[in-house]
């Protein structure tokens, strides 16, 4: 039985340019207009890109909401951490502040010097380990290194400094006053 191609529009083109009758059967069954196919492919690609763009915009708005929520929460109340006498020079104490899941580390670097930072590495949140003799905080996961005096990154993948806990003293106790987050 002869096939009829009357219903196939003239705009239908074949990739190799040969007449329609010489095309393989699968192509005759499903004729593809190549330029039109290019349009469809690009339109679908653009649609996907617009979806990705939407996801980015949602992410930006989510960050904005989180930021607004953080600011509405206000600053943290001060809290006693440990008695000065309980921390030897060169010693460290782990604590959480202001929330139970905000892990911090307090280090006594000299007789009258205390520093406290977030104990989560700013790279991938591994726990940092203070090394007082070397004057650094080490992240064992990817060999990140932070300056003990400032909390700024010295080596390895971390780019942001560790959030610093502002400290005070009250009746022989070290007191956490606030958390200072920094970009540089």
């Amino acid at each position, binding site marked *: 039985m002869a096939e009829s191609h009357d219903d196939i529009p003239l705009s239908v083109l074949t990739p190799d340019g040969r007449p329609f009758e010489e095309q393989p059967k699968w192509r005759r069954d499903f004729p593809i207009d190549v330029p039109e196919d290019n349009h469809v492919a690009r339109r679908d690609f653009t649609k996907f890109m617009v979806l990705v763009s939407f996801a980015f915009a949602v992410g*930006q708005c989510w960050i904005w909401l989180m930021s607004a929520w953080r600011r509405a929460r206000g600053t943290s109340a001060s809290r006693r951490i440990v008695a000065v006498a309980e921390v030897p020079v060169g010693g460290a104490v782990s604590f959480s502040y202001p929330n139970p899941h905000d892990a911090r580390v307090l280090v006594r670097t000299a007789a009258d010097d205390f520093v406290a930072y977030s104990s989560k590495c700013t790279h991938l949140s591994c726990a940092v380990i203070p090394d007082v003799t070397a004057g650094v905080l080490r992240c064992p996961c990817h060999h990140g290194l932070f300056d003990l005096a400032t909390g700024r990154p010295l080596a390895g993948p971390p780019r942001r400094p560790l959030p610093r806990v502002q400290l005070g003293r009250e009746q022989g106790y070290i007191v956490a006053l606030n958390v200072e987050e920094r970009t540089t």
Partner: protein
Amino acid sequence: MKRRVSRDQLNTIISGMLCVVLMLLVLQLWLLTATMNAYLGGDHGVVAPAAAVGTICFLLNFGLFWQMRRLEQ
């Protein structure tokens, strides 16, 4: 209905639109990473303007896509 532009011209226009969409997307990606870095660093001042710019970029992308569909019809 006859096309106002030839198929080659349409191809060029659509390729140009696609390039603009991709550039806006790269800008959004950069903006997202920079905003996240600022937010984690406690710099909350840039977050709201960045969210506004990110939304504008998306609206531009959507507008271009809409125009692309209209051109192809």
